[in-house]
């Protein structure tokens, strides 16, 4: 069983503080959906509203097409994996996993059998009699997943479950989570502030800022065509140039900036143009989209090399634009042929019209 989740104009207020506003989201049945945003953006609040620990101040939560108003967390077809996992320390591993079955009144023998099956699923066979404290971080993580799956939820909610793990384990668990989701085929709703997690695992991502959902789209759309300045700056690295729209046509906007005129691709929002001639605008260029200036480069910039960073697979080049302009970053793949630049070199850079995007000026993600 699996179910879709719909948030219909959900608002959540705590006194005067609005934790979430105008949340309109439809999560498809069997989808891996992520909420991505900096801490305090209201993503956990929305998750608690879905799981039933919070009642929206306004709007409806529908799971499988059914309005969940007045239905407590213990009667919703959801299971939540908590940020700190909240495993029961006084129970053994298998008792933790079988807790949902125990409260349903299933016999001990059946419970044990089901727990062992789930232990196989999470690749911890034969570890059922251990105490929770005997498990490592990644194992606890998997036990928490098994415990939630034992409840046979239609929707599994995950509240930053990987944030406590170290990097290597986190990367491993990403793949694992995605694999588990595909195996059990239920809807996953995932909360994270780590864009890497969101982009690698999710079918769709909702980026949130200050209680508001800025954009809902699949990972590549979020990365390549962010609809707001915040999304553009929050997801991945981006170089920003501020200016004014000079000219505008279907596929290109020309933005006048102190560093030159840049030609960029304007992004629509809700199928509507966001820019008009004369508006304040921002041009975003990914570091990997910046190249050495070619004769046919649509946009050119020049500056002084401030710093070079070697990251193994990448070279990062920090360039200071003249006259107190912004620092921009260029990254190029380390293919052994990359031009070596010295600090202090003058450098001519360029980027194509399609790799740059133009958006209305807005708040950027905090550095």
């Amino acid at each position, binding site marked *: 069983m699996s179910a879709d989740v719909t948030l219909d104009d959900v608002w959540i207020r705590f006194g005067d503080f609005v934790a979430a506003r105008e949340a309109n989201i439809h999560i498809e049945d069997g989808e891996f959906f992520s909420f991505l945003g900096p801490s305090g953006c209201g993503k956990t609040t929305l998750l608690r509203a879905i*799981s*039933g*620990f919070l009642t929206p101040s306004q709007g409806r939560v529908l799971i499988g097409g059914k309005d969940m108003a007045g239905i*407590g*967390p*213990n*009667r919703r077809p*959801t*299971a*939540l994996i*908590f940020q*700190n996992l*909240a*495993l*029961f320390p*006084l129970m053994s591993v298998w008792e933790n996993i079988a*807790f*949902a079955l*125990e*409260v*349903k009144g299933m016999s001990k023998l059946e419970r044990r059998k089901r727990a062992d099956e789930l232990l196989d699923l999470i690749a911890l066979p034969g570890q059922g009699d*251990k*105490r929770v*404290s*005997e*498990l*490592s971080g990644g*194992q606890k993580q998997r036990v928490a997943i098994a*415990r*939630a799956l*034992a*409840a046979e939820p239609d929707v599994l909610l995950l509240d930053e479950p990987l944030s406590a793990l170290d990097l290597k384990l986190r990367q491993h668990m990403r793949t694992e989570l995605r694999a588990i989701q595909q195996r059990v085929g239920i809807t996953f709703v995932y909360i994270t502030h780590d864009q890497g997690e969101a982009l690698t695992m999710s079918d769709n991502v909702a980026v949130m800022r200050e209680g508001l959902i800025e954009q809902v789209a699949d990972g590549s759309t979020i990365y390549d065509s962010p609809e707001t300045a915040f999304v553009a700056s929050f997801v991945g690295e981006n170089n920003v140039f501020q200016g004014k729209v000079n000219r505008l046509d279907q596929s290109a906007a020309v933005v006048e900036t102190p560093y030159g005129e840049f030609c960029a691709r304007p992004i629509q929002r809700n199928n509507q143009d966001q820019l008009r001639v004369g508006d304040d605008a921002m041009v975003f260029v990914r570091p990997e989209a910046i190249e050495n200036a070619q004769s046919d480069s649509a946009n050119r910039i020049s500056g002084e090399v401030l710093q070079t960073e070697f990251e193994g697979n990448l070279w990062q080049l920090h360039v200071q634009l003249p006259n107190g302009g912004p620092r921009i970053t260029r990254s190029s793949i380390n293919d052994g042929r990359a031009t070596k630049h010295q600090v202090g070199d003058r450098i001519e850079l360029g980027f194509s019209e399609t790799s740059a995007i133009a958006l209305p000026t807005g708040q950027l993600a905090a550095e």
Partner: protein
Amino acid sequence: MGITAFNSSAFPRVTPWECFTVEWFSVLAEDKRLLTGLRNSLFIGLGVVCLSVPLGLAGALMLTQVKERVRPWYYTIVISPILVPGVVLGISTLLFWDRVGVMFGASRDSFFYNGFFLTIIGQSTFIAAYTMLVFISRLQRFETVQEEAALDLGATHWQTFKKILLPFLAPAIASASVLAFLASFENYNTTVFTAISTSTITTVLASKVRYGIDPSISALAVVIVVLTLIGAAVHEILKRREIARSKLAAEVAAGNRLSIGKQTPWYFDPALIMIFLIVVAGVGTTFMAGTMGVEECKVAVKTEKQRATQERIKALRERNQAKRDVEAAQQAQEAEQKREEKEGRTGTENFNSIFNTDNLAPAEDAPETTGEPENDPSRTGTENFNSIFSTDNLAPKDDSEQENGEQDKKDEEAPRTGTENFNNIFDTDNLAPKSD
């Protein structure tokens, strides 16, 4: 205090040490009042545990639920019984339930006037606050997210409470129970009012102290102290085992160890077995030593005591004899002197002319005695002479009743005439010196 339980002396004391004995334990075992009090105290203690642990738990849970602003007020109110003197609580309980009883028209035999009921209620009023403090400190370490996790997995609120919160609180319940029981067991000032005719260990002890105690109380103290020490030791051992276990668990989690392995059951713990053996050996040898040869020792002590008494008596007699000898010598000397001075003398000058008419009839000095100036010797002007004219003194008998206040009681064995102190002034020698 504990040592006095093994001294055969009838009063709890360490010195003088008489005989090593355990007889006070059997005296204790046969002390009906103390045992009844002990049984009642145990019963009341259990009642208090049953009442104040759930109350304390409810109070502590309530504290986590009430709003932030109300919390200090709530806390102050529920904690206040600890600050109220126990005497006040006792009297209040008594009066309150009396009023309630009157309201329902209950008879004096009803539970409103039952010492057990009143004592359990009265003690629980403040002991519940103690247990609440224990629960509060434990609850502060509870991750409420565990409750949420249980709810999320489909548990009802009751299941969540039973399967998640109660197991977490189990250690606190245990320590709150012990605390409540001990607080009830040792309580006096509330109990003394609420117990009415029921006796508890503390009220029995208090009355014993008032009317005289023997070392069976020390024996009771020894029993309680030993039980407490054993309990503490067992608790400590279990705690250490738990710490060791969680250390092992951490190693397993870190991958440095395959598994914790089977721990031996707690009752096979070597330290525990050691304690058990020490206790058994200690109790065994004490009782063996305390029962063997006690009678002989007691007889010996008794004989020794008697001998000491005899010696004291003998010494006293000798002292008195010496005193009498000295007195006799002085008397002889005085008689000699008197004989030398008998010419022109009445022989009574040394006695301040006690036979002068002035002294015999002092009517003007003491008018109230005019009626019987001669008959009441204590009122005449002769008081200064220790009633030497009272008939008792004048007609000496061997009866010990005759002793006057100055005489040492220890001198009973040496019969006296009662007139020795007056140097035999009525000896015929002294009384009729004129004929010569």
